[in-house]
């Protein structure tokens, strides 16, 4: 590979880091997707992971996903907590035998030299109660800092993964802070330029963090959000019900589903409305559990629908 210009190097440019990861996984053969155009809490919610992890078909994809965690807002005052941040997500189905090496090489590509840095795989089992999903894997540590999550999905949306997909999630801001040697996220060099041309992470996102923190904790319209949750839940069920069809092929009485994706969008909406309500503290401890359960039921129903679609079912 030809030498990168300074402003594109991952150790001095946030966007350079993202582009390097995209390029690395594109070289491997991944589909490089763009972020999903909805508010999600993590890259796992992208249908390219949640739904595509199900079913027997091969699927290798990578993408950046802006992730919203309304509760984690700190009005821009905490050096590393954000209510909106970027995850870089890689999903490889089936998980290739050399997936750990692939991951380590991706770290090398962004300038983490395994001869100098202490890279460790530390037990961390992953579970998403809202998605009805779990897997086993690790937190990946670099010199004592967690830089990625590494999971072998065993179950997603209540459906057993067959085959199992490997999921890699890079916390991009953290990783960038590490390679740039910066202690405060807002000090990250975003575009890799110097002097007047330099744009920092703070230039791009500090105001947003302040505004959304106000919104998430003080002003979000809870009546509307309760209503939105309900509407999304109803719509999800409606679309799911409407999507079931008898298989048109002669002699087959297997059912198929024709609207799993639009239904799943509504599940995502419900989940985000719940996260916003949770941040406002208007959901009690006992109610909280029941909301999580309601989202999980939607996710499970969507997963069930997905494995009866063209992309989700066995050939």
């Amino acid at each position: 590979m030809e030498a990168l210009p300074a402003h594109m190097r991952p150790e001095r440019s946030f966007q350079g880091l993202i582009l390097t990861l995209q390029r690395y996984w594109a070289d491997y053969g991944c589909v490089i997707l763009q972020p999903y155009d909805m508010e999600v809490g993590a890259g796992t919610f992208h249908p390219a992971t949640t739904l595509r992890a199900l079913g027997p078909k091969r699927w290798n994809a990578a993408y950046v996903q802006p992730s919203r965690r309304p509760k984690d807002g700190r009005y821009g005052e905490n050096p590393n907590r954000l209510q909106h941040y970027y995850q870089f997500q890689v999903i490889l189905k089936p998980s290739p035998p050399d997936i750990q090496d692939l991951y380590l090489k991706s770290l090398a590509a962004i300038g983490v030299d395994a001869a100098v840095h202490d890279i460790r795989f530390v037990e961390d089992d992953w579970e998403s109660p809202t998605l009805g999903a779990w897997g086993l894997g690790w937190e990946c540590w670099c010199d004592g800092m967690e830089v990625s999550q590494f999971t072998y999905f065993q179950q997603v949306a209540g459906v057993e993964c067959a085959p199992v997909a490997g999921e890699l999630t890079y916390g991009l801001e953290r990783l960038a802070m590490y390679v740039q040697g910066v202690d405060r996220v807002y000090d990250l060099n975003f575009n890799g330029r110097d002097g007047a041309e330099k744009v920092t992470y703070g230039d791009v996102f500090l105001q947003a963090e302040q505004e959304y923190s106000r919104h998430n904790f003080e002003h979000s319209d809870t009546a509307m959000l309760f209503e939105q949750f309900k509407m999304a839940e109803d719509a999800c069920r409606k679309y799911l019900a409407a999507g079931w069809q008898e298989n048109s092929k002669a002699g087959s009485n297997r059912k198929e589903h024709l609207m799993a994706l639009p239904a799943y969008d509504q599940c995502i909406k419900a989940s985000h409305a719940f996260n916003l309500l949770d941040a406002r503290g208007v959901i009690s401890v006992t109610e909280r559990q029941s909301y999580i359960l309601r989202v999980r039921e939607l996710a499970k129903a969507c997963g069930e629908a997905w494995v009866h679609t063209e992309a989700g079912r066995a050939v």
Partner: protein
Amino acid sequence: MPDLLLELFSEEIPARMQAKAADDLRRMVTDKLVAEGLVYDGAKAFATPRRLALTVHGIPARQPDLKEERRGPRVGGPEPAIQGFLKATGLASISEAKIQSDKKGDFYIALMEKPGRPAIDVLADILPVIIRTFPWPKSMRWGERSAKPGALSWVRPLHAITATFGLETEEPDVVKFSIDDIETGQTTFGHRFMAPAAIPVRRFEDYDAKLLAAKVVLDPDRRKDAILTDAKQLAFAQGFELVEDQNLLDEVAGLVEWPVVLMGSFDADFLSIPGEVIRATIRNNQKCFVVRDPKTGKLASKFILTANIEATDGGKAIVAGNERVIRARLSDAKFFYETDLKTKLEDRLPKFDQIVFHEKLGTQGERIKRIERLAAEIAPLVGADVEKAKRAARLAKADLLTEVVGEFPEVQGLMGKYYALAQGEDAAVAAACEEHYKPQGPADRVPTDPVSVAVALADKIDMLVGFWAIDEKPTGSKDPFALRRAALGVIRILLDNNLKIDLIAELASAAVYIRAQRIAQEIANLGGVAHVSFSRDSFVMGGFQVLSNDLSQALNAAHDADENRRKLRDLSLGILVGQLLEQEDPEGRPYYVSSIENSIGIKPYSFLPDLLAFFADRLKVQLRDQGARHDLVDAVFALGGQDDLLMVVRRVEALGKFLDSDDGKNLLAGTKRASNILSIEEKKDKRSFDGAPNAALYKLDEEKALAKAIEQVKGEAGAAVAREDFAAAMRAMAKLRPAVDAFFDKVKVNDDDAKVRENRLKLLNEIRAATRAVADFSKIQD
């Protein structure tokens, strides 16, 4: 004899699972070998993050041959039976069978020889089964194969299996088998980063040595030793002392194959945070050790990390990276700590009213009120200031709502003490915030300060009584609320502090109060206002009072159609009459009292004997653990009514000393002899020989002497027991010995005169009765 080498090479195994996995592997393989008739010389298993390894040496090359006789049909039996026999035994014709005769006739016998198989073949059969059924706490599927049914489950993806078998002097053979796509071989791999290349291995000795050359220390104990030695050395070189931590050491040794110990620093400003919080932060989040100044015992602004590589820059980048993370973590901890200091502990209390402790036992707020009341009641009995005990009980749980404890639950109590001191609480009150949780386990310290003792007892008694009242007792291995530990804690606090407390009275007091409190809460939930007023006197009278501000209103509203008001009135009435029984009101409608009682789910104090028996069991366990003879413990408990734990222990101690003396031994022998004769004669006559003997029927001097001795000893021992002077009671008991010995020497119990015989048996019974002043001697073993 040949040796086995087995290595299961995988992706990173969780540190906490490694030791047990190595042990399971050794146990499963060796058990199976023995079951197959292959008795081995020795076995050892090892684990690193990436491998489980096992060496078994001295396995016989072949199984022994097995000979078996099988009995067949009768000679001349039906043809199908004979054919079936030939088929089952593999004989070519019936002439190969032997004929054996017994009283039922002649039978065919087949002598079957099952030749032993080569051990390597046996291994090829048993190893795959062990791997497929390995008991990982959690296991997973992976890769292409995971789509197929029956795919291997392992803790993390398994990549290679090395399995060799052979003599030391020869090239070993591979134990051939495959699991899914993995074929056994003799290739392993070195350190992930420093020596990743494939390594051919033959047997354990060269495997171990080659791994070491490839930067893998196979033996976890060697890794631990290396880490500990280096960490101590590194600390010492800088004038510090390592804060040792066995659990952390075990975990860290499971995270590296090639431990490299390095030291880093953090800003000394962070030392304003309590040392335990710094340690918890660095330990839990970063898995690093802390060091202290040996002169002051205070933490130094240094930490010790264990890397997995020898970095080419000597570890500079690794130390710098860890320092940065620790700085961020300590900033968080400092922020939490300083935030916590801004709120007084008592200002946190209202929040406890919103936090459910247990569905049936109410909120944390209610529980704290109970502990406070009980602590105040216990305080004078243990020499504590009542006001201080109440204050401590009120504040003791408040730190659960602080940020630091939220982040690091293990510093609960300790933070309470720091925050209490910071807000100027009395030293005894602050200490109790920490000490009331003690003792946490058998090795933990027992609180001694009276305020701590009062709160610790109240806390534990409330737990025990509460869970007994709702019938959530520990069963078998299930003890989710750690009630055994709580009971043992009460016992140790009482014994170690030499406290004479009427335990049953405190348990009863807690039992009555918790029920009254829950009923009052139910009244409040129904819209009434209730205050629980409680005094020992009213409890002793057998009741308690709930004074309801609007009780009269409730009574007046007898015709109110509102269900809640009706329930309320009924409940209030029920309490007033002191009986929560189902009965009819003046208009013939049933009270709702019992249904409300059921909804509260708190039993009245009828469970107390059971709870007391639980204490007795814990005490037995405790005494046995301390080396007391369990039969002596049983002998004392068999007396019944032993609810003063301190007295039980004193009795057991005195009894033990007495039985070590000649007098004790002989008296025991005499008493046992009396008991044996009695039980034989009781059985024979189908009656007991209770009741006083008749002095007029004594014929011999020895009888009279014994009767006199018993009379005297009874009086003396009884008086000594009443003074709780068990040593004196035992000394009095010793005086029985010559009379008992003389009696058995000279007197024939089973006299021909039935009346005399009966009288003598009654006298023997008196011996037994007299000794029961101190213990039931029949439970004591010789």
